[in-house]
């Protein structure tokens, strides 16, 4: 439950803007009441709104989950609480946050661009352009909601015959009271009232305006409530400390890179160190009894960015000098210099300096193979040659479907097993050899001793 004073709490303009949409989550929803709230805002009952939501879920190929997660996190409930804002204020709704994270993960995994290396784009009309279809549907749904919500804001006389009945709109906005106006119309009216009456916080009914200002039954002004105490944010000292650590980290990483002791790209390495720095700053803010403020936003930005980068978007980043990846028994290992790629399916191979040799005739940075476990041999020794000898029907994943064996005969990829890490390193050093499951549907990869 919020009070008027809480309603007047200082908040980022971003959240104020969201509240201005007048769209609140419903109270009877199964998952946060998003569908109920949005449906109510645009004049739909719960049941048809849910049916439309399920249809959208199928039409957008699961991407709907991502939109739902965003709406759940950002839309206020009937008492004006915004999940993500409360989280930033240090009063998180853990259950809702977990569900939002699950929905977001499902939704982002279902994004049209999160294609897997095994997907054959040739089956779809217009090649990769098919991804525009679910995106267009999702965009269209969002635009439709905005248009309908905007339409519902207009006074009844300005709406057409399909307008929402005023009593219904009033009922929808009633529970929010004066704390967080449920509709932009009410917000604007309240602002106008505030500017004319020097801060009265009386609720203004939907559709109210000049007529209300002239109403005879005005309540006498009540004394302002005592100021609520505030918890300070991190403050300039912690922010400057954080910035200082980030700058020092940049210098140290640059130095390591200059000396060739850095495995990953300097920028990527700095982004990883920055997460630790932000975490340390949050600990400092917590220890001194402060809010995390902007640090919380930074932390989530980094975490979500890294999770998306590491798991959702395959081959999103090119880790120059970060080591190539090889899949052994379903586990992807970093095995050498060159260009490594994230392998979402843990079944592709990019090994060594294929930019110069293997990928001759193909765009630089092209992911190498679509793979099914098919080849098995034993690696022994510190270095080996991976020979790729595809037949004519091997499929490569490039920007467009690419089929053929052009320029792939007799191409060797040299993997520097000196720099092997993890299980591969242990196995090599133990002299046990490693079973290598690499391969493509119609190709053979042979790992030989150098």
């Amino acid at each position, binding site marked *: 439950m919020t009070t008027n004073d809480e309603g007047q709490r*200082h908040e980022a303009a971003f959240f104020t803007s969201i509240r201005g949409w007048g769209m609140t989550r419903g109270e009877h929803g199964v998952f946060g009441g998003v569908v109920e709230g949005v449906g109510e805002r645009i004049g739909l009952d719960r049941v048809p709104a849910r049916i439309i939501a399920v249809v959208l879920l199928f039409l957008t190929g699961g991407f709907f989950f991502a939109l739902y997660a965003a709406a759940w996190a950002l839309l206020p409930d009937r008492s004006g609480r915004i999940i993500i804002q409360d989280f930033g204020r*240090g009063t998180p709704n*853990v259950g809702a946050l*977990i569900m939002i994270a699950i929905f977001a993960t499902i939704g982002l995994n279902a994004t049209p661009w999160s294609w897997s290396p095994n997907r054959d784009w040739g089956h779809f009309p217009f090649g990769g352009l098919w991804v525009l279809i679910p995106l267009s549907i999702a965009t269209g749904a969002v635009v439709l909601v905005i248009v309908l919500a905007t339409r519902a804001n207009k006074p009844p006389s300005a709406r057409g015959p399909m307008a929402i009945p005023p009593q219904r709109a009033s009922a929808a906005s009633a529970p929010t009271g004066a704390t967080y106006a449920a509709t932009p119309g009410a917000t604007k009216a309240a602002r106008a009232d505030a500017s004319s009456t020097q801060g009265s916080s009386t609720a203004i009914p939907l559709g109210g305006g000049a007529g209300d200002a002239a109403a005879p039954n005005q309540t006498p002004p009540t004394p*302002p409530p005592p*100021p*609520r*105490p*505030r*918890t*300070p944010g991190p403050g300039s000292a912690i922010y400057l400390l954080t910035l200082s650590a980030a700058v020092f980290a940049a210098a140290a990483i640059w130095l390591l890179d200059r000396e060739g002791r850095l*495995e*990953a790209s300097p920028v*990527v*390495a700095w982004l*990883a*160190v*920055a*997460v*630790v*720095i*932000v*975490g*340390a*700053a*949050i*600990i*400092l*803010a*917590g*220890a*001194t*009894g*402060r*809010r*995390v403020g902007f640090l*919380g936003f930074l*932390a989530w930005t*980094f*975490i979500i960015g*890294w999770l998306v980068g*590491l798991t959702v978007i395959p081959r999103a980043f090119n*880790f120059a000098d*970060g*080591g190539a990846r090889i899949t052994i028994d379903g*586990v*992807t*290992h*970093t095995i050498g210099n060159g260009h490594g790629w994230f392998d979402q399916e843990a079944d592709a191979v990019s090994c060594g300096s294929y930019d110069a040799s293997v990928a001759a005739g193909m765009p630089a940075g092209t992911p190498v193979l679509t793979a099914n476990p098919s080849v098995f041999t034993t690696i022994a020794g510190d270095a080996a040659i991976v020979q790729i000898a595809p037949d004519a029907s091997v499929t490569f994943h490039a920007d467009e479907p690419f089929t053929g064996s052009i320029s792939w005969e007799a191409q060797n990829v040299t993997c520097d097993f000196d720099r092997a*890490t*993890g*299980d591969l390193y242990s196995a090599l050093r133990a002299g046990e050899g490693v079973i290598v499951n690499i391969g493509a549907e119609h190709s053979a990869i042979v790992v030989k001793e150098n």
Partner: protein
Amino acid sequence: MSSRNRPVVYRPLAQRVTTMLWGVAVAGFGAGVIAHLQGYEFDVELLGIVVLAVLGAWILASAVVAIIRGR
């Protein structure tokens, strides 16, 4: 009244601990990313199990604290 004129109250111990745990989680995530970039392979399933167990313990601790406070 601007927020600067409002009295300042720092958070109580319980909220401080929660914030610090959140900071530890963020820093731990960053450390994990660094380890991954260095070539360390995580057992994702085991990681998920550990995260769930820690989350359960956290919620359980919160429940215990709530019960104690309610007395």
